[in-house]
């Protein structure tokens, strides 16, 4: 190369790619933008929410099984005295006087036939989910009478609790992590395999195409559940296995879609031009075919994520998916459906999260389709 004095420094004007145009059209679509915001909020809540919640997703509150969703704190005023009485009875204490103090403490004068052991009494009360920081004061009457002061342990269950007394809010958010991760990872697995396989098959054509697509047909004919059970038998139950299984099945659709696209793209003149320039097959696939198939792929991806989330729910429902105490939206919903009578919140809250995610993804998919191919509108 001769060193000509060309002005390399001329600021090259940046062009607007087709992707830029598509993004603008997408942002002009109100339903799609709302959906993106909803999805982002759900994702952020699922990822960071559990860190800020007072309850762990696997902590069991035995005294609060199936309490309804409420903005008020538990225990309720009228629950305190019966609970206190019950514990006192179990600790073989009889209550002489009972008083609820303004500052959230319970103060009771108790007597017993035997000598009251401070540690024993404390253990009985503190073991309950309702009371904490119990103090035994003023032992009199030879240790057979005392004053018990116990703090009422107020807790919030905004979404209620499940049949085991676990906080549904933190469980729903943890489930969101699992469902979204599986949805995303399985989709990425499916799409990467599908795009590469489909583009290669379509571009090479001829006998290679024939063999590659017959392989797809054979895989299609395998029953999905049978396939998953087989994987579980070989590798044991495993979180990673989930998206390998789902991804390994879902890429078949993707491969067919991309192959069809490739067949039409490879007749385009820019592909012929690249061939005439002596570009390698790899280069043509990488620079010409795959970027031009990505439009439909992106749309299909937004539709695949909900499909995968539902598939995972189905597998978990069968007991092949995630295992307790870990959970996913599908598991929560199937539990909720069993407790629909009497504990409807168990179904309602996870369903709200799942359906809004699915709706959002579908709207985004619609928006993307319009944005990427405006001629179709």
């Amino acid at each position, binding site marked *: 190369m001769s060193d000509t004095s060309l002005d390399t420094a001329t600021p090259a*004007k940046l062009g607007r790619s087709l992707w830029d145009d598509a993004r603008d059209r997408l942002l002009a679509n109100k339903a799609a933008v709302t959906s993106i915001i909803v999805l982002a909020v759900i994702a952020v809540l699922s990822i960071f929410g559990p860190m800020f919640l007072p309850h762990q997703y696997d902590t069991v509150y035995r005294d609060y099984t199936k309490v309804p969703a409420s903005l008020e704190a538990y225990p309720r005023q009228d629950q305190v005295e019966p609970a206190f009485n019950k514990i006192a009875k179990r600790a073989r204490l009889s209550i002489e006087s009972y008083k609820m103090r303004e500052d959230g403490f319970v103060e009771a004068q108790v007597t017993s036939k035997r000598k009251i052991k401070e540690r024993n009494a404390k253990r009985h009360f503190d073991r309950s989910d309702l009371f904490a920081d119990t103090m035994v004061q003023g032992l009199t009457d030879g240790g057979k009478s005392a004053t018990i002061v116990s703090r009422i342990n107020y807790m919030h269950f905004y979404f209620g609790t499940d049949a085991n007394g676990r906080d549904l809010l933190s469980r729903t958010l943890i489930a969101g992590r699992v469902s979204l991760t599986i949805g995303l990872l399985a989709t990425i697995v499916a799409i990467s395999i599908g795009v590469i396989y489909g583009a290669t098959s379509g571009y090479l054509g001829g006998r290679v195409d024939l063999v590659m697509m017959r392989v797809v047909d054979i895989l299609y004919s395998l029953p999905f559940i049978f396939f998953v059970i087989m994987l579980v038998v070989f590798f044991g139950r495993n979180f990673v296995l989930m998206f390998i299984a789902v991804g390994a099945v879902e890429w078949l659709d993707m491969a067919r879609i991309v192959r069809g696209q490739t067949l039409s793209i490879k007749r385009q003149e820019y592909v012929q*031009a690249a061939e005439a*320039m002596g570009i390698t097959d790899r280069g043509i696939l990488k620079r010409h075919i795959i970027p031009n198939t990505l439009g439909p792929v992106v749309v299909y991806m937004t539709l695949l994520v909900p499909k995968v989330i539902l598939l995972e729910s189905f597998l978990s429902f069968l007991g092949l998916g995630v295992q307790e105490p870990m959970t996913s939206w599908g598991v929560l919903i199937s539990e909720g459906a069993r407790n629909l009578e009497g504990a409807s919140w168990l179904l309602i809250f996870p369903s709200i999260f799942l359906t809004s995610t699915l709706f959002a993804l579908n709207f985004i998919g619609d928006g993307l389709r319009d944005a990427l191919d405006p001629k179709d509108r």
Partner: protein
Amino acid sequence: MTKLNENTVLEISGLKVDFATNTGTVNAVKGVNIHVDKGETVAIVGESGSGKSQTMMAAMGLLASNGITTGHVRYKGSDILGLPPRKINKIRGAKITMIFQEPMTSLDPLYTIERQLCEPMVQHGNYTWATAKKRAVELLDLVGIPEPARKVKAFPYEMSGGQRQRVMIAMALANDPDILIADEPTTALDVTTQAQILELMAELQQRLGMAVVFITHDLGIVERISDRVYVMKEGEVVEEGQTKEIFEKPNHSYTRMLLDAEPTGRKDDVPADNPVVLSGDKVRVEFETEGGFMKPNHVLRAVNDISLNVREGQTLGIVGESGSGKSTLGRALLQLLPSEGRVVYCGKDISGAGRKAMRPLRKQMQLIFQDPFGSLSPRMTVGQVITEGLLVHEPHLSAQQRDQRAIEALQEVSMDPAMRNRYPHEFSGGQRQRIAIARTMVLKPKLVVLDEPTSALDRTIQKQVVELLRNLQTEHGLTYLFISHDLAVVRAMSDTVMVMQKGEVVEQGSVSDIFDNPQQDYTKELINAAALKLEEFI
């Protein structure tokens, strides 16, 4: 010429068309006044994007949904603009009819010609199915289709492009229209067919006495058939008048530019003892189509034993109508299609060479395509498009050096190098063709096959591209194989010309031999149909 009289059948006044797009409003037509008198032929001329088609589409209420029309369109005195579809349909398709450019897609492939001809006649209430069928046969006869009684039962795929366009004309004539609007009706046809269709239209007009509005970019057609001309540019009528006056004394500079847009000049001769770059000996290409179960495969011979020789710095023009095998020949010579026969490039036998063997030679042998919209990958920037070949042929270059080469290539085709980070869809057709040329020039080739490089471009841009190609040739000593159906361009570009028909060479010789003294009937027919202004060059 704006004086109106009772003879005026269609009057368009102050017509404006705006398109609301997400990048703002596009004013496609900016206040156009056009009138059409009874029985006259009016031509609307302009380059692509001048709003000539949009004007008539708007007048007929056929705009895309984001189009907004204002102004007046009066048919025999009553305003038809903005009428509800039910009312306008009484006029549209009956009294004012249209023919479109694409005869291949204007007919529904699922129905017979008869059904498609009769439907509008019955719809408009003038015929019953029985009478319409009789009329359909008459109409086909009228537009010169042989054996109309048999052809009326045919499906569109059984007819050629020219015949389909005749059917479209028959359909437009079905309800005795007052006005026939023809939107580039011959652009998609071969020159010889084009001439026949124009003849037919002129004859029908004389016989039936309707007015014809002819939308075209081809001034040759205008001169031949129209009475009056409107010249449109960027949504405005810049000049109007009698055809003769406009052609003899054009007032507007744009009209003058259109008039002398035909590529002129000829290529300088090259020494006859230059080495032969490419020679083909009995090149034959066959396509096999499966004959079906138990039937032998059908073999189509697209190129039949063609031999040729091109010397360094020469241009061989290959002329022929669509289907003559000229593009197939070009691709076969570059070993992009399997072929028989011997192909020798710079003394090296490359016939039957595989992709691997050809790769080092691809740098020197390039191909430029017809469609500047299809031949650039839409998701790559212009810089990436241009330098892609360097990735293979000069892999040692750094990204910066490649960028430098892109800048040089763009300057060579007279484009602003600052544009190299833009995407192809941001450029016009002519600019894209320049980019496509830059893409081949960056590799510094020896031989370039140009497959109809100017056919999709407007005349004025065609002229620029032809000049650019000629300059590049003299500068770099390139050898061209120039494939085209456009005789004017071939004459301006070539040293020798080869006329092809149905895969065979009809006539071969130097430019002056072929154009000034054609021997074969087919060559003469082609030259006549193209209506070249031969006298200018003698």
